[in-house]
């Protein structure tokens, strides 16, 4: 195939600009598997010592890495499940049904989506304390879900908007109830959106740091991001940076894998709907 411009200059520019990122990632991986003499850059031996957290408890009654990982998974998965379930329903309602204050809901969705959530954190902190959900995983899940919802609903509404009205009318004419029409005829059309929201909110939950740190600071139900932060501050481990890198790699790996598998589906969010 003939191109109307050459590829390599573009690739070169992209490569140069990506170089800092590439170097950092390379060293993240290299550092975790090797030892070095302090002050040098080139590693001198291969080791799995930095990954010792996988088979030994590091110290002092803290949950092992697997407990923390399980917490993170529960946190991310339930956030994703609830966000997706509510988004597919709310998105449909906003796209198709005429109900009082629909315009108001649409407007506030955008505002909430753009809202700097950190400013809400004190109010949320107080509310969770009153409810007795402070320092629990459930509390963080609820807050995270609430904050993810505007985005999810907005994207799902966009997907529903691309489904032709006639399909729905045809379904109703064929004798199906509105619910059957939604479940059997419309939902399959917006499945790419549903998948995208599911994966996106899972990844977002997996990497969430601020909410668990502020609202769930205890050690009972830590997630990986806060676990990593405590490692950094912990004097017991003497700020073992290679250990921290290894934990970081362990933490980032699922994200990379999920992204590699589902990148096409995730791109749908920005493509904005099903293809013809």
């Amino acid at each position, binding site marked *: 195939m003939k191109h109307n411009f050459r590829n390599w200059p573009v690739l070169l520019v992209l490569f140069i600009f990506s170089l800092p990122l590439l170097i950092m990632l390379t060293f993240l991986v290299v550092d975790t598997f090797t030892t070095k003499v302090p002050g040098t850059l080139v590693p001198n031996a291969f080791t799995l010592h930095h990954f010792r957290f996988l088979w030994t408890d590091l110290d002092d009654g803290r949950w092992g890495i697997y407990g923390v990982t399980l917490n993170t998974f529960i946190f991310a998965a339930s956030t994703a499940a609830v966000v997706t379930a509510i988004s597919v329903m709310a998105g449909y309602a906003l796209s198709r049904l005429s109900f009082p204050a629909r315009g108001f809901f649409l407007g506030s969705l955008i505002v909430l989506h753009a809202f700097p959530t950190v400013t809400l954190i004190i109010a949320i902190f107080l509310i969770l304390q009153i409810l007795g959900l402070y320092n629990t995983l459930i509390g963080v899940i609820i807050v995270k879900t609430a904050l993810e919802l505007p985005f999810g609903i907005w994207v799902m509404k966009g997907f529903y908007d691309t489904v032709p009205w*006639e*399909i729905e009318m045809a*379904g*109703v004419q064929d004798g*199906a109830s509105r619910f059957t029409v939604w479940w059997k005829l419309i939902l399959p059309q917006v499945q790419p959106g549903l998948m995208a929201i599911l994966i996106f909110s899972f990844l977002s939950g997996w990497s969430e740091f601020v909410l668990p740190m502020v609202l769930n600071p205890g050690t009972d139900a830590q997630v990986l991001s806060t676990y990593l932060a405590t490692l950094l501050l912990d004097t017991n481990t003497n700020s073992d940076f290679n250990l921290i890198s290894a934990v970081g790699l362990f933490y980032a790996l699922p994200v990379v894998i999920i992204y590699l598998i589902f990148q096409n589906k995730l791109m749908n969010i920005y493509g904005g709907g099903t293809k013809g």
Partner: protein
Amino acid sequence: MRISITNFTKTFGDTTVIKDMSLEIESGEMLALLGPSGCGKSTTLFSICGIHRMNAGRLRFGDKDVTKRPPQERNVGVVFQNYALYPHMDVHANIAFPLKVRKEPRAEIDRKVLEIAALVHIEELLQRKPSQLSGGQQQRVALARALVRKPDILLLDEPLANLDAKLRLEMRSEIRRIQQQTGITAVLVTHDQVEAMSMCDRIALMNKGDIVQVCKPKEMYDNPASDFVAGFLGNPPIAFLDGIANDGEIRLANSEVALRLPSNVIDLSNGTQLRLGIRPEFFQPENDMKVTGKVSFVETQGREDLFDVTLTNGAVLRSIQSRGGDIKLGDEVTWGISREHILAFGPGGERL
């Protein structure tokens, strides 16, 4: 099944689309709702099937009042303009959907789907997805899906609008054949007069939310109730001459030309404003009531030629003639109007 609409009114917000309309559709009849876009024909269709709620009036299928019934309970099959096939289901599943919703047994569903597929000639397409079908095939699937549960009424919303010219001819006769074979009462919405005239038993011509005339296609063509009806039916369209009645003649506006009026309106009082409608087939060289004008437009249509003739006062007459003449643009011609075929309309457009 007989459909009767009485005093139907439909408003969207502040705009009244249809006001106080009444219409009777006989059992087994195919009726066309014909009209320009925005005249309320689709609104009427969607009110019959229940997608739109009627603001006022009554709708009865046979003896049953269905005004307040939801679409699911009306047993009406609809074919939408873009067919609205379910893209994630294959053709079999598409056609079977109305039966599945009713929870009919599997064997029964399969039998009915095959039966209806044979009727619309799509037996070999049942395993395909809608995206793998041509426009005409999608149309057949949509028809099959609408007919499979034996609805009382079949509604077609511009069913041929998305097809190319050749397929349109084919599907026109196909839809008619299927309608006659099943004997179903059908309502067809279209803006194409040829479609309406060739497919339907009767035409209801609509304009601005009103039914202007309801009758058989031929009768509507020969005997239009108003200049709107006359102008809407016929291709090439009818030409109009404006003038004033004077002693059994019409004096054309801004000219000295006077023409004898047809015998049914010959005794109009002098000074009455008139509008004459002359169809292209009645303005021919051999007719006796001659007018002279300049050929201002020539269009070759293959078997026939279409001419526009501009009279001295600027009015335009159309003529359609079989090919053969060597008339060129700009020629002066003196052709005749068939007097008894002139349609006369009053100043408000009403037929005289």
